[in-house]
């Protein structure tokens, strides 16, 4: 590229980036700034009032537990699915990944209603289990409406995210390394532990951080499934903004805490990704 064309190239790149920058400013930075300013009104009193509520702390704990639990389930299942996909032919893999990615297109509400239809008190699987094994429908359905059930439901659309992140890593993994480890004296499990796991762990950790952040911030599925029965921060926030007499400073503080939590999880993932790239030494 000639020097003369550099300014026009810069202008072109800036023009292409402008719509994105406007959207980012209007729909992310501006609302975030407004909420941030709102949360600091009356000298940060909103934070004080929020921290003084025991329900906030239990909600925070439940939210973190939900994020970690859903993240762990999703990474465990998603990694196994990705490992399988990495071993099959490319055409079959592409077809299966299309099917696996479908839940990503569903709204959280659709997923929630889908689980109610499947695993609710009158759900297909619940009634089938009752008929086949005499499982109590009320007891079984209670699981779906519990925090553990919520983590299970979240996994439905978190697992595809993990699969999408892990498949390229596992496809690119040179399986001759496992054969080499075995030829050097390692058993199959030892070879996997010494050779495969250290190489895919950073990607799995990045996937965990991403899906944990999604689980921490999600509210649609939880709202449709458990209403206010489970105390998590996104539902606290929903209840607060729905209240016409809401304490806006406290609500904004809650929103900022939730944003911070999600951002922290994402930041850890990004840090791991960068560190992993640097460690490869290319």
């Amino acid at each position, binding site marked *: 590229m000639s020097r003369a064309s550099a300014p026009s190239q810069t202008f072109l790149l800036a023009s292409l980036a402008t719509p994105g920058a406007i959207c980012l400013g209007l729909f992310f930075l501006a609302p975030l700034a407004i909420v941030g300013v709102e949360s600091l009104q009356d000298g940060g009193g909103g934070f004080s009032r929020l921290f003084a509520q025991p329900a906030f702390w239990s909600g925070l704990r439940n939210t973190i537990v939900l994020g970690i639990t859903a993240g762990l389930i999703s990474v465990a299942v998603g990694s196994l699915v990705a490992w399988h996909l990495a071993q099959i032919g490319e055409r079959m893999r592409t077809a299966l990944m299309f099917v696996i990615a479908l839940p990503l297109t569903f709204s959280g509400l659709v997923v929630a209603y889908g689980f109610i239809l499947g695993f609710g008190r009158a759900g297909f699987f619940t009634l089938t289990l009752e008929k086949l094994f005499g499982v109590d429908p009320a007891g079984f359905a209670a699981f779906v409406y519990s925090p553990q059930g919520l983590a299970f439901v979240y996994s439905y659309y978190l697992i595809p995210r993990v699969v999408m992140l892990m498949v390229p890593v596992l496809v690119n993994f040179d399986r*001759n390394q496992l*054969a*080499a480890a075995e*030829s*050097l004296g*390692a058993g199959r499990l*030892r070879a996997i532990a*010494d*050779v495969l796991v250290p190489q895919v762990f950073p990607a799995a950790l990045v996937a965990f951080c991403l899906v944990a952040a999604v689980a921490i911030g999600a509210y649609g599925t939880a709202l449709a499934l458990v209403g206010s029965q489970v105390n998590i921060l996104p539902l606290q926030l929903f209840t607060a903004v729905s209240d016409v007499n809401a304490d806006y400073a406290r609500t904004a503080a809650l929103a900022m805490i939730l944003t911070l939590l999600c951002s922290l999880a994402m930041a850890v993932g990004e840090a791991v990704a960068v560190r992993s790239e640097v460690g490869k030494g290319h």
Partner: protein
Amino acid sequence: MSVVLEDVGFTYPGTPVGVENISLTIGAGEFVAVIGPSGCGKTTVLKLIAGFLTPDRGRILLDGEDATRLPTRRRELGIVFQNYALFPHMSVADNVAYPLKLRGVPAAERRARALAAVDMVGLSAFAGRRPPQLSGGQQQRVALARALVFQPKALLLDEPLSALDAARRVEMRDEIRRLQQAHGIATLHITHDQEEALSMADKVVVMAQGRILQAGTPTEIYERPASPTVAAFVGQSNLWTGRVRDERHVDTPIGPLRADLAGFAPGSEVCVLVRPERVATGPSADGTNQFSGSIVRDRFLGSLRRFDLSIGDGTVTVETKETSRTDTIHIAETSIQILPLDAGQHPSETRKQ
């Protein structure tokens, strides 16, 4: 320490592809190269010895003991893979120390032995680096050090030079041979490069379609190929289908040749082999086996010249150090080999360039 394959056969499930009747001995300290075209089964043989595949038939003996169904990890074989298969998350020293770690060697001794092995391949300055930070040749050396550090029973090399550039490949041939001889270790070297096999090996095994066609010293394989297929695969060759006229003459596409045809019935079809470097330029003293034609292709190869001479209905490839053009050649009787045709084959002027 030796490796013996006794009538080994293997077929890949659901396919007719595999190897059949593989009998092969790699003696202690012997360097055996297996060559053949792609898909001939040479890598399958390595995988069978390594334990990555289990034979359907026959036995594999390692150091005299039946290892046919022994798991890979218990075979004590050093393997260098085509792409080296180094562990990118470990340093060079840790890669080399890994087999020692698996054998419970104490950390201090492990490190000392690994560093000694790294030094042996001339990479002391790179011990702390990771494989992706090394060149192809350096990675190859690390793979060799890792494969040798635990004093394996045998060394298996799966086309280890194929990823290197031509200059590095020649250099690494000598390096591998030096290390192999220093360790006195039985070695199987899989390659599709005939020059590599001939220059490195004590014994060369030529394979095609899952079977061993011939095994022998490089000189035997080159000078006395057992079949036209072997002759065509190893080295440059002029191969013509000929019809035996009598005990002293054979008719070929380039004309009648005077040769020793003892044992071949008059009228039978044979394969006539003449190596290009055995074709002499200029007229012969008595006019025997002398031909003239026109040059159809001329290639300068640095230290020599290779040209194709169109004669009669055939072509003769000639290799010579002479730079002057000539359209007359002669072939000494001792330079002509008569081979029976391969079963089902009719090479009719088969030539390998």
